[in-house]
């Protein structure tokens, strides 16, 4: 219809809008903030490569990364086989969890939703636990012995578990309007899958239990280059889907009825969101363990920093900030300057819980924030 609008009328509108131009906000991304985020992410990535229990000079790192020979062969191995895949994993996992958090918060119209809270990560855990038992493999760093097929199976099982729980939560969400009920149900799904995993572990040998427990602490350090061939495409695929959905996600901010009235195929949108979240949350849970709080905290930080819920800003910003926060959390978990490595989940909780409390307090009341 716009294209058929007589061009003569448009200048009239423009003239009218000229004096009031200041009252119309600029809808584009705040570019300076975006540039700052990119620089921050690069800095965090560099930090993650440079800092570790072994001290490697910065110029040596650059030499190694550009394909040169390091003074000591061990340094090369540390950077290329440990620090680089670990940094990449943290970057991808942080981006994945944050973006799936944004998707869940918009889909459920709930500021406290994320894959972890809704029990989706637990579903992925169940898939992982089943694969470990079925394969009968333990292997240090969980799955080293399984090979590419095993990695793929693991990721598929986790994504499948995540999708099943998400579909269940959605099914209930369509019948139950109350958001509080939904959160409690997500929590219960989490307990049930947790209980099933416990039962599985009860019948497993002690080594398995030990490995499973250390897996639940969360770590970005367990992904080998071989596993990266499954991990990275899954995450990038999920992120690409998310980026394709920015427009309908914006319409969904108004609720499903308005979204439909704008021409959104809500059912199809929901399917794509399930697929994207299952890929993102499933892959991260499979290879890094169930990592909490990043999915809630980062999207809210992005909304605060950019002052908008517009997904065209929110999704790219969550990718950048999510990657950066994950890298920093990993850096903190290594306790710089020591040999200690803390559970990653403890660090993300310490960073994320205050953000969640801030979200709740900033709203006039919890009731308002949940019934909104």
């Amino acid at each position, binding site marked *: 219809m716009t294209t058929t609008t007589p061009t003569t*009328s448009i200048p009239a509108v423009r003239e*009218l809008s000229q004096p009031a131009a200041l009252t119309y906000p600029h809808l584009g991304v705040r570019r300076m903030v975006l540039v700052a985020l990119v620089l921050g992410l690069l800095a965090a990535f560099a930090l993650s490569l440079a800092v570790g229990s072994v001290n490697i000079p910065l110029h040596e790192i650059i030499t190694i990364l550009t394909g040169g020979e390091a003074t000591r062969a061990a340094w090369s191995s540390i950077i290329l086989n440990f620090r680089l895949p670990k940094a990449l994993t943290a970057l991808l996992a942080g981006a994945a969890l944050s973006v799936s958090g944004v998707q869940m918060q918009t889909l459920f119209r709930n500021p406290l939703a994320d894959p972890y809270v809704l029990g989706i990560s637990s579903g992925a855990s169940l898939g992982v636990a089943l694969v470990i038992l079925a394969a009968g493999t333990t292997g240090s760093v969980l799955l080293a012995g399984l090979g590419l097929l095993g990695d793929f199976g693991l990721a598929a099982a986790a994504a499948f578990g995540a999708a099943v729980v998400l579909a269940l939560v959605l099914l209930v969400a369509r019948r139950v309007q109350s958001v509080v009920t939904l959160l409690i149900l997500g929590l219960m799904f989490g307990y049930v899958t947790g209980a099933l995993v416990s039962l599985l572990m009860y019948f497993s040998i002690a080594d398995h239990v030990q490995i499973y427990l250390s897996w639940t602490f969360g770590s970005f350090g367990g992904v080998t280059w071989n596993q990266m061939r499954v991990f990275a495409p899954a995450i990038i695929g999920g992120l690409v889907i998310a980026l394709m959905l920015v427009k309908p996600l914006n319409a969904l901010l108004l609720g499903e009825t308005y979204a439909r009235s704008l021409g959104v195929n809500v059912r199809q949108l929901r399917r794509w969101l399930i697929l994207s979240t299952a890929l993102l949350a499933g892959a991260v849970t499979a290879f890094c363990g169930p990592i909490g709080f990043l999915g809630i905290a980062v999207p809210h930080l992005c909304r605060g920093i950019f002052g908008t819920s517009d997904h065209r800003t929110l999704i790219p910003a969550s990718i950048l900030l999510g990657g950066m926060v994950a890298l920093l959390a990993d850096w903190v978990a290594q306790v710089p300057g020591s040999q200690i490595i803390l559970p990653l989940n403890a660090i993300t909780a310490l960073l994320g819980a205050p953000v969640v409390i801030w979200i709740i307090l900033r709203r006039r009341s919890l009731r308002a924030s949940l019934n909104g």
Partner: protein
Amino acid sequence: MNHSSLIAHSPASDLATGNRQLETSLSTHHLTIGYRQGRRPPRVVAADITVALQPGELVCLIGPNGAGKSTLMRTLAGMQPPLSGSITLMGADLPTLTPRELAQHLSIVLTERVDVGILPAYALVALGRYPYTDWTGNLSPDDEAVIQWAIKAVGATDLAARSVDELSDGERQKIMIARALAQEPDVMLLDEPTAFLDLPRRAEMMQLLRHLARDTHRAVLLSTHDLDLALRSADQIWLLPKGGNLQAGAPEDLILSGAFEAAFRAEGVTFDAYTGAFRMNTPPAGVVSIIGDGLPAVWTTRALEREGFCAVPNNPTAAIRIEVLPNLWRITANGETQEYRSLYEVIAVLRS
């Protein structure tokens, strides 16, 4: 407020004066609405509805709660399939339109408050351009022009930069209407747009919608409980009583045909065709003669009617007579005369 001067410059109104005016915007043909319930027979809410919406018309859908106003709105919006009959939107059969085409012809405003998080009002209105933009949702200069026109048309220019979550209910409603307008629809459906507003805001909102319908040659259908306002503003009333026998016509037609009175008698409300006012049904309490004139006499009559008395002017044979003086009411009953300083006291005495 004068919206027409702004709307005259709108991109759409130029089109509107052309071919649009001749076509019926929305019409139904023997439409039956209701719900399918699996194997059991469908639950019919209203049957055999044949009505038409013309461009430039403001139509109010009124009726008691539970009569099916929302079901009708949802069916007309294409959100719910009809049980039988057909709906024609701008000459096309409704189910044949793609979601995008439908969104370009018809937009809605719902009663429920939306919580969109942190979003400037301008960005919310911009969502109305959804059916016109590419997959990224980027706005062309034309889109921006339509958004700004829509914001002006509802008189919300000063709200554009503010965040939606800090707007009042009335301001938010204006923005939601601007959003619906930015869709450049031929038909706008509004579900109780005045529900959360105070009385002056309601009148203003109705006035605004009337102007929008007239000046942009769009058809506006709104459901409302505001009978008085509907009677004063609507070009057409669709009256949907319980039982689903919808009647349509100019407000005055429905009053003269007695349809209005009949529809609301069952609800315990009496419609006075002479004053156009609604009254609660209360058992008659006697005849009171009112002596006096001017505003005090008018409101004395109203107060007495509320209590179920039949107030008649200057009737010496009535058992109770009230003389209305400046700030003084003199009541004569059973040969006794007493004076009161307020209507509150007068009513208290008469009640006992």
